[in-house]
């Protein structure tokens, strides 16, 4: 299964990287899979008072099985609030109450722009993707957006084919010029090889840490732009014993997370 010390698999490491971005009392908008796992690791470790919400209308759910969608039946009973889409996207997200959002996409570029609309030309796409859904407003309005991506030259891009969700757009203050709220935007890209953190001035994703077993050179080779290396670049801290215990004993005893290995997260 895994050659990593501590016996972890890459999706577990990535989920822990996400968890560490969440502070106690943060309000976090989550989807399914990784984001939910990350947020729940945080809740069970250093951020017990973090509040999770799903865009469908749910706050602080107590699901008894892993939710397979943000509208999953298991999110209803036990939640602190079950309202509607506008309660979450309008009253909480647009009004500036959401600290952390998670996003992923078929393409992510160096400014953290995300494409979930179409690969190729919009009018005659090679692949028609689902569209924005909640991604654009989360990327526009959450204080910190964490982007999950596979680290290869197909998923990462110098420029996405279609900007569905704004990162730093074309960098250097573009968000502010467009009128997006201050102190919002992508925080980092968590890939299967590294954490790329955004330079808030230039808007570019730069290498902050490489996961155990990966090298800076390998990462540069697999990044389709001239990747800047942060001064304090270092190896990503592997999952702690406690984090792994939370994942395996509490959150995911059936190891559903291993499905991400099949999707290339190795």
């Amino acid at each position: 299964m895994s050659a990593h010390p501590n016996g972890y698999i890459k999706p577990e490491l990535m989920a822990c990287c996400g968890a560490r971005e969440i502070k106690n009392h943060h309000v976090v908008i989550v989807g399914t899979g990784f984001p939910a796992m990350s947020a729940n690791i945080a809740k069970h470790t250093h951020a017990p008072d973090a509040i999770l919400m799903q865009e469908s209308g749910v706050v602080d759910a107590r699901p008894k099985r892993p939710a397979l969608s943000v509208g999953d039946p298991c999110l209803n009973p036990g939640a602190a609030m079950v309202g509607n889409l506008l309660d979450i996207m309008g009253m909480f997200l647009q009004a500036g109450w959401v600290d952390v959002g998670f996003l992923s996409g078929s393409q992510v570029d160096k400014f953290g722009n995300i494409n979930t609309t179409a690969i190729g030309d919009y009018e005659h796409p090679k692949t028609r993707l689902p569209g924005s859904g909640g991604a654009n407003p989360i990327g526009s309005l959450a204080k910190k957006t964490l982007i999950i991506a596979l680290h290869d030259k197909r998923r990462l891009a110098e420029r996405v084919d279609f900007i569905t969700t704004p990162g730093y757009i074309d960098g250097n203050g573009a968000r502010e010029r467009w009128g997006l709220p201050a102190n919002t935007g992508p925080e980092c890209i968590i890939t299967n090889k590294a954490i790329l953190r955004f330079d808030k001035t230039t808007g570019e994703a730069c290498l902050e840490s490489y996961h155990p077993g990966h090298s800076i050179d390998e990462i540069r080779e697999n990044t389709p732009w001239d990747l800047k290396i942060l001064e304090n670049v270092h190896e990503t801290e592997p999952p702690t014993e406690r984090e792994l215990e939370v994942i395996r004993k509490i959150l995911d005893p059936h190891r559903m997370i291993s499905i991400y290995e099949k999707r290339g997260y190795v």
Partner: protein
Amino acid sequence: MTKVMTTKEAISQFVNDNDFLFIGGYVCRPPFAAIHEIIRQGKKNLTITRSNAADDFDMLIGAGLVRRFIGTFLSLGVYGLGRCFRRSIEKGIPHKIEVEEYTNLSLPMMLMAGSFGMPFVPVRDMVGTDLMNIKSFMGENKFKLIDSPFDGKPTLLVPALNPDVAIIHVQQADKFGNAQMWGIGGDCKVGANAAKKVIVSCERIVDRDVIGKDPSRTIVPSFKVVAVVEEPFGAHPGYTPGFYDTDFGFGYQYQQASNTVEGFHAFLKEWVYDIPDRKAYTQHYIQKFGYGPFKKLEAAFDYSFPVSYAY
């Protein structure tokens, strides 16, 4: 004055070719019985809308009934991309639909604006992205970017939407149309109230007095409603809180079938065209998969605490 009728009657009387339809649901409570009936009756050239569309919208597109889609997202969730949606856009099968793209913030805000009689509404998303560069059938009225007259800051305005008909599925309604819902709401309340007419599909028709015991659960009042249909299991393969779970296995079967045009048509034949109504659908389900799997979808018994409105 009772508005109770069959789904067949409701769709036949109140949904017309070329109509603009809001169809409620968010995994939760898709009005699938009504959607199948729309397909059976072959209503044409529809414009359809909802935030986060799923298998129901995919099916309407695959059946060739949709001309325009005001949307944010269309996917089969855990099963991946919507096959009919992709074929329509990528290959023009059965024809290429026109898509006006918004987000899960802007679209429900537009429906809210419609429900509140506002001409437009400011939203804080979409700016700086290609969602502003693509405009379809709404043209220059997709949005307007203005300088706020209050502080001069760039402000995006999106127009109100007022569908001709809204179709929603809820837990209960009375015969007059007062419709009650609990659990995940999606954009159901704003979408229904934005429409000129509402068709209410429900798990059970209850007495007016039952509505009056807990009137804060009502999301649409009778005077907006033109038809009330009792359709138990009416949201399957989606779910209704307190009634039945999502049918994940069936969702997977739809995805598998819709992978090919032939598979999709065979699916429609089996589950829609050869089926007269939701009772027959449920019977077919039980015959095909067994009563056990059907019964397993039934919700557990776990009731809330009652409250009082008395004085």
